[in-house]
């Protein structure tokens, strides 16, 4: 589904990605972890089509992701560090706008369902300006999955959320996983990795340091393994 061939990304004089090789199959739920500045967000942006790789190529469904690849852009849902939401619009207005950009059919029903799923029904018509960080993040998730993407790219979605919001988010991820959506999750939150993902990739200095299945492992194992891989070495 996602194929990253030896991607190098240089911004200014700095080489951020130094040959990212990674293949993610359809339907997988993959966590990408690594120290700050490892290049996780940068790789995710390239995968979302926001940045161009300096060298190497990124294939989605065997096709290079270039501009005007509308069919590819249509199947990707991306949530970066910013919510992309308009502060003075209500959740409904925000989602309606994005529904139109993504040509969503029967938007009103879909928007109602999503707002309910992320637990914001009560705030449907309030401007986003008045929302807490957790509420904004929940709405941002709804925005990212609005157009039924086949690939969902999430950049640290758990950061700054309370327990209830984390549960809602995990539920959404697990539901999509069951539907066969490919999910890539950049995070520092190891318990959520164990709860949701099948596979974990450790990134360091712009390269894949380790790539392991998570079948039957627990959080403590992940902590020790991460420490060994990313910190000592």
């Amino acid at each position, binding site marked *: 589904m996602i194929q990253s061939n030896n991607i190098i990304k*240089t*911004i*200014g*004089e*700095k080489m951020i990605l130094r040959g990212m090789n990674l293949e993610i199959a359809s339907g997988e739920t993959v966590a990408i972890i690594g120290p700050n500045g490892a290049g996780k967000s940068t790789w995710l942006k390239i995968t979302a089509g926001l940045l161009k790789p300096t060298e190497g190529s990124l294939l989605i469904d065997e096709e290079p992701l270039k501009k005007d690849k509308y069919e590819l852009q249509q199947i990707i849902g991306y949530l970066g560090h910013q919510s992309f939401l308009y502060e003075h619009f209500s959740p409904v207005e925000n989602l309606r706008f994005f529904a139109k950009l993504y040509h969503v059919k029967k938007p009103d029903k879909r928007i109602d369902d999503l707002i309910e799923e992320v637990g914001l029904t009560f705030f449907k018509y309030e401007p986003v300006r008045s929302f807490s960080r957790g509420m904004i993040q929940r709405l941002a998730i709804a925005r990212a999955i609005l157009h039924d993407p086949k690939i969902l790219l999430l950049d640290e979605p758990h950061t700054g959320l309370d327990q209830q919001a984390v549960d809602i988010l995990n539920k959404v991820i697990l539901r999509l996983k069951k539907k066969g959506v490919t999910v890539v999750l950049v995070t520092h939150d190891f318990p959520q990795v164990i709860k949701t993902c099948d596979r974990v990739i450790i990134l360091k200095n712009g390269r894949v340091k380790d790539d392991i299945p998570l079948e039957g492992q627990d959080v403590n194992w992940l902590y020790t393994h991460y420490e060994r891989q990313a910190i000592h070495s």
Partner: protein
Amino acid sequence: MQQDKGLTNLPEPSLLHRVMVMITIPAVVVALYLVFIWSPVERQMGVVQKIFYFHVGSAWNAFLAFGVVAVFSILFLITRKRIYDMIAGVSAEIGVVFTAIVLTTGPIWGRSAWNVWWNWEPRLTTTVILFFIYIAYITVRSLDMEWQKKGRLSAVLGVIGAINVPIVYMSVRWWESTLHPVVMGEGVEESGGGMEPSMLFTFIFTVLTMTLVYTVLMQKGIYIEKLRIHVAKLKAKQQEKMIS
């Protein structure tokens, strides 16, 4: 590691550059001799006419430099090679100097020829606008961003600016003709029409020499840019070492 070696070796000025410098220095001296001593003093305007040689030479180079900016901006947008961005940037910096020369010598000429410091003659007015476009372009280049983005944005501006220059010229000429229905004597450039052969020779020689100066400055500027990048790379490398 090969990359490491590339970083410790400073970029060298090319042989071509050295040769060009060798040619340019005597050419400038000869040009000065031709302008101030060899060529005759013009009858009507006197010595002030000599400014004409520099004025036209600078104007030619100012527009040439902007043409270079436009061409290399397009090349940069297509290929994203850093060298094209550097050429465009350096050319703009040199171009703005030549434009400033045009804009100072123009009024001096105008004062003697038409007894006004400034008239809105189309070529001069277009040069003013060109000057401001250059300033806009250099302002964008001085923004604090990574070079890839800066190169892209300034290249776009370079292209738009180049499209604009001929339209400005046309509209100013039209506008000027409504201002002064009777043409008040042609601009500086065309008064060279009935020049004596010795003046014509001096004129051509000066323009060529100034183009040489432009080329040498271009080479120098690109060399300095290369050194600057070299320093930035060394710095980035060092910082990386300190972090890890």
